[in-house]
């Protein structure tokens, strides 16, 4: 069973702010959902490989050539922050 403290901890990791009411609600809902997940433990997966993709493809590469699509400024303009020297200016990190 997931606890309210665990939900607060995960919310911090995924950068969400939860009100006290939301912590109660999500703890309750996630508890039900995680209980439901528990049935997976019944499945015998001894010696079974993991499937992380289903394309049947591997090592798709392209030639190491620079292409210019001329969209840098348009992409930067999507940001709500100041643009300086073709960069997004954000508050200091440290």
């Amino acid at each position, binding site marked *: 069973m*997931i606890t309210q403290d*665990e*939900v607060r901890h*995960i*919310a911090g*990791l*995924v*950068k*969400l*702010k*939860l009100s006290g009411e939301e912590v109660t609600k*999500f703890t309750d*809902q*996630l508890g*039900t*959902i*995680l209980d*439901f*997940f528990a*049935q*997976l*433990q019944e*499945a015998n*997966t001894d010696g*079974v*490989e*993991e*499937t*992380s*993709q*289903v*394309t*049947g*493809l591997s090592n*798709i590469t*392209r030639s190491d050539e620079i292409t210019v699509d001329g*969209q840098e400024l*348009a*992409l930067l*303009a*999507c*940001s*709500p*922050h100041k643009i300086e020297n073709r960069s*997004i200016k*954000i*508050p*200091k*990190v440290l």
Partner: protein
Amino acid sequence: MNITNLTLTELAAKFQSGELTSRAITEAFIKNIEAHDSDINAFVNTTFDLAREMADAADSRYQNKTLLSPLDGIPMDLKDVVSTQEAPTTASSKILENYIPPFDATVWQKLKAAGVVLLGKTNTDEFTMGASTETSAFGVTKNPHNTQKVAGGSSGGPAASVAAEFSAGSIGTDTGGSIRQPASFCGVTGLKVSYGRVSRWGTIPMASSLDTIGPIAKTAQDCALILQTIAGQDPKDSTTSDKPVPDYLAGLGKSLAGMTIGIPKEYIVDGIDPEVLNTFNATKAICEELGAKLVDISLANTKYAVPTYYIIAPAEISANMSRFDGIRFGTLPDGTTDLQSIYKETRTQGLGDEVKRRILIGGYALSAGYYDAFYRKAQKVRTLIKQDFDTAFLEVDAIITPVSPTPAFDIGENKDDPLKMYLEDIFTIPASLAGICGISTPIGKSKDGLPIGAQILGPAFTEDRILNIAHQIQLNIT
């Protein structure tokens, strides 16, 4: 002539023979949207001025005998996760409410180059996370057959748009059933392609190992026409396959005689609505009359599909959604000066409950101490589910099942019970985990007039085969 009642295939024929102009077709759909979308809420944004311009350009091409493709001049809509320079692309989320992409998704580039007319962008659950469009920040899409009912989801806007005759065809996305289930609820045809058949570049992702893009339209033939234009390898999406794209229309004439179709016993469960079961059994009978051999099969790990999906998808969601941190998109929340509060306030204010719930589940499943028990275990069970299909397809050419255990449910019915909502996708999720293709075709209606659908599944890259089976059923259903 009732223009909007015609199939996309019929409209294309009438446009190309000069019987109808693209402008006339486009105006007919615009008139329907203006008259009725206030009741349905299929569209997030409309692009009528652009549509008229594009229709007039198609009409000029007809005059000059320079038509671009079989889809030239046909008005369509796009689910609002497909990036378009011409209109906001919101993913039905407040966080992207005013976002206009500076680029077009590959799928829209291809349709635009084919001459398709854009009527607007249609509603979805927020970031495609839901089975009813109730998580959209811009209101629920109502079922055109009964506005007390959901249109399904997440591609509820596209499915309702086609069903309400607001457009000739649409593009949806399907990660765990998001094309097939709304198509079924709205009584239209929806194709979930094999993973890697259609480029996802420029389409806002949900769960990257599962997301697919495909057509929703009135008929299988319409879907074949649209798929022909959007399928194929794209250097910008390294998960697209280099397998040749077959001629999907040419594949539609084949008889079902000699074909073996499997009925998985795990899909005929106790909770299934009797009307759904009766209608499904009638469809099985049609397949047999058309010469197909029906056999009972087992997909033994089906019961694990929903929990497997709801670990893997949220894990990928929590990673994909990390890009929405208030740096590259969105509006700056008031009073935020430091970086941590920009991250937190942007996400907390901009995202809805279902998105938050899935980010939390994903964060939990991937966190230290739980990774092996949840994520790694789910990826192993995914292998078992895929192997079930691989084994079944050694014996059968295709599989047929109901799309959903019930017809469309009431708006609000599952809203406060996330687990119940997750279980709505019980019949569509397994194929998504396996990466195979599936098509949802209307097969009848309940006594209350709600559409019922069947799902035909085929091995990866057999879209031609399942389109033909759906087409044969559609030609022979009464």
